[in-house]
């Protein structure tokens, strides 16, 4: 009998899922006891069972990434293809980017050897690369990671002209609107604000749902508006704050929207989920959000999904398309992984054509592979394909610097609440605080 000591060890293994090759196969009794003791950690338990039940001494590749719908099939497929070379176990991170990064950097700073593949938001590559936390991809591996990739997403995996990850998905926000309320989508913010006013006048839902809470989503929205004016927050080399006349223009537009009747009362507390809910509950006529809302609405409110139409993100200069901020996920290999070879294969598998297609069709997540955008099956289930590809062509990226988190924090604080922006003054504040953030001076809000 293994006794209590044995049980405790198994619990530890389950939580950390270190997956050492020497990990003993526990008795089924152990698993049963663990199940009783730890009913609140189904993920850990699953990891334990997956790690122990079928394969005897295989290599476990731990993938740290946010929870994602329809991802289990992806993992199952890769594990089948690996044919015993390794077994992928997903360690779920929170859904919000800040929460993911907190857990990742904490483990990375502690040189956690149980991490093999890490799912990185596109903005983290410089920080993780500069800290020496992720491995560079070279030779064959680099070629495999770059094959068929769209230029925009691929760019986010590169820092200092070295490749550090394979793109898994990309993302651009679109304009979602109610086709039963509006015959045609607005092309510019001006038009959108006017339409919202007209809708309000006739007592119809009129809110423009926008991620205005003090967090990354606000920075994404502002970056899009700023880039559409032709401006940027930080110079290309990531060393100096570039705040100028265009920043003032972008601030003025954001402030005008926030103080208009088109803004929801909870604008300054709205994140993606609140924005999505405002549309699904019938309060919003417009929604600026990622394409996942399409699949989500079909699941949550099929009746309204009939009237959910999409269009290109509204521009700020008539005749010029908006320059939408690129989002998305890349897979990097932890520098502390004990199985970098297998981890790289696993990352390539998770991000391969078949799996990107599966996630695009089922979860509405835009793929990064050029050829997929012409795949008829995908186009049927993912009607946004053309607009997404078009927007990616004119996309803008968020500041590329190892200190991005600092920049994001001070920008979000300066813009929050959006209704209190005073364009000239806020621009001056941004110039000072963004430069401080780049130099890691001062304190974060």
């Amino acid at each position, binding site marked *: 009998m293994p006794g209590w000591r044995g049980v405790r060890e198994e619990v530890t293994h389950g939580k950390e899922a270190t997956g050492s090759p020497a990990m003993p196969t526990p008795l089924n009794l152990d698993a049963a006891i663990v199940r009783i003791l730890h009913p609140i950690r189904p993920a850990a338990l699953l990891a334990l069972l997956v790690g122990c039940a079928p394969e005897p001494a295989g290599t476990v590749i731990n993938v740290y990434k946010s929870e994602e719908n329809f991802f289990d099939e992806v993992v199952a497929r890769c594990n089948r293809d690996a044919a015993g070379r390794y077994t992928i176990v997903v360690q779920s991170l929170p859904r919000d980017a800040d929460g993911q990064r907190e857990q990742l950097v904490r483990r990375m700073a502690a040189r956690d050897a149980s991490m093999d593949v890490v799912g990185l938001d596109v903005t983290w590559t410089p920080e993780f690369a500069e800290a020496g936390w992720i491995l560079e991809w070279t030779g064959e591996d680099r070629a495999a990671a770059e094959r068929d990739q769209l230029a925009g997403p691929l760019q986010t995996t590169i820092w200092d002209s070295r490749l550090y990850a394979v793109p898994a998905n990309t993302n651009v926000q679109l304009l979602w609107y109610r086709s039963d309320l509006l015959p045609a989508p607005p092309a510019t913010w001006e038009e959108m604000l006017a339409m919202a006013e007209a809708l309000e006048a006739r007592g119809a839902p009129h809110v423009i749902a926008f991620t205005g809470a003090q967090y990354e989503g606000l920075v994404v929205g502002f970056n899009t508006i700023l880039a559409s004016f032709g401006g940027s927050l930080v110079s290309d080399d990531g060393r100096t704050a570039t705040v100028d006349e265009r920043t003032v223009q972008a601030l003025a537009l954001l402030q005008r929207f926030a103080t208009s009747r088109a803004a929801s009362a909870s604008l*300054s*507390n709205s994140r993606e989920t609140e924005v999505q809910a405002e549309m699904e509950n019938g*309060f919003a006529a417009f929604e600026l959000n990622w394409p996942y809302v399409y699949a989500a609405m079909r699941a949550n409110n099929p009746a309204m999904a009939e009237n959910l139409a999409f269009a290109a993100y509204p521009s700020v200069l008539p005749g010029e398309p908006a320059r939408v901020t690129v989002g998305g996920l890349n897979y990097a290999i932890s520098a502390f992984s004990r199985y970098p070879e297998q981890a790289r294969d696993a990352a390539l598998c998770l991000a391969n054509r078949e799996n990107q297609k599966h996630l695009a069709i089922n979860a509405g997540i835009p793929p990064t592979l050029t050829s997929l955008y012409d795949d008829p099956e995908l186009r049927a289930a993912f009607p946004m394909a053309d607009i997404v590809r078009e927007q990616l062509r004119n996309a803008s990226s968020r500041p590329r610097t190892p200190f991005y988190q600092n920049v994001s924090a001070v920008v979000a604080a300066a813009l929050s609440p959006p209704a209190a922006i005073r364009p000239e003054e806020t621009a001056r504040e941004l110039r000072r605080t963004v430069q401080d953030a780049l130099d890691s001076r001062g304190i*974060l809000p």
Partner: protein
Amino acid sequence: MSPSEPSPAPAASGPAGAARREDRTLGLLLCAPAFLVMSAVAGFPILYAVWLSLHRADLRAPDDFAFIGLDNYATVLSSPIWWNAFAVTLLIAVVSTAVELVLGMALAIVMHSTTVARGLIRTAVLVPYAIVTIVAAFAWRFAWTQHTGWLAGSAAPLTDPASAIVIIILSEVWKTTPFMALLLLAGLATVPVDLLRAAEIDGASAWQRFRWVILPMMKPVILVALLFRLIDAFRIFDNIFVLTNGANGTASVSIVAYNNLIRGLNLGIGSTMSVLICLSIALLTWGVVASFGIGGDSGRRGAG
């Protein structure tokens, strides 16, 4: 301890003195393991934080590690972000503690004087305190969310600094009044019934008995309860983290420290803030104790 102890015989002479010395040594030896463990788990981190606070230590620029004296303190103490958070924290701590003291006293008296369904009432009062703070905070947040929350209606009170802070204070009060009530109830139980009877016979009204008999008798308990709650309230984190995440100027010092230490990975600045929070709490505690006039003092006067 020992110097103030009234010693029956002049120390260190004869076999009794030797035995006592031996006892002392044994006592110290028995304490030693606990002392070592405490200095390892509590002392070391505190000293390490102080040491880090004197350095430039940013995990994003690990090569820049350098001793910079009190620069971090100057950076933090000259920042409006810090002082805004400090003011918010102090406001929340003082207001919520004051409200809790009044409500807690009322609840304690109810619990103390109730004769029917005692257990049920005490249990009911304690329910909010038994709920995990994060869960309670989420309940408050959902209740105050526009459209979906039952308290919010079509307004969005969590987006306005003033109403957000009021909600934060309300949820703090709701959550910890039972704790206050419990401490005060213990104090109420120590007030001798004879004293109250005597006051009643002397013609003191209920209010007079409360003001001039119960309150003075409970002074030490009230002091302890106040200190516990002030220290706790000054470190407020989870409630704000869930309700507003520090947006719109509602961040407490703990939230700001967390943002710099855990999100920003700036160990130097983060440690500086932790040290400052610790110092603030020490000052606050000292202030409360001093303004209360310590129990021993009034006790001596009472006896004399």
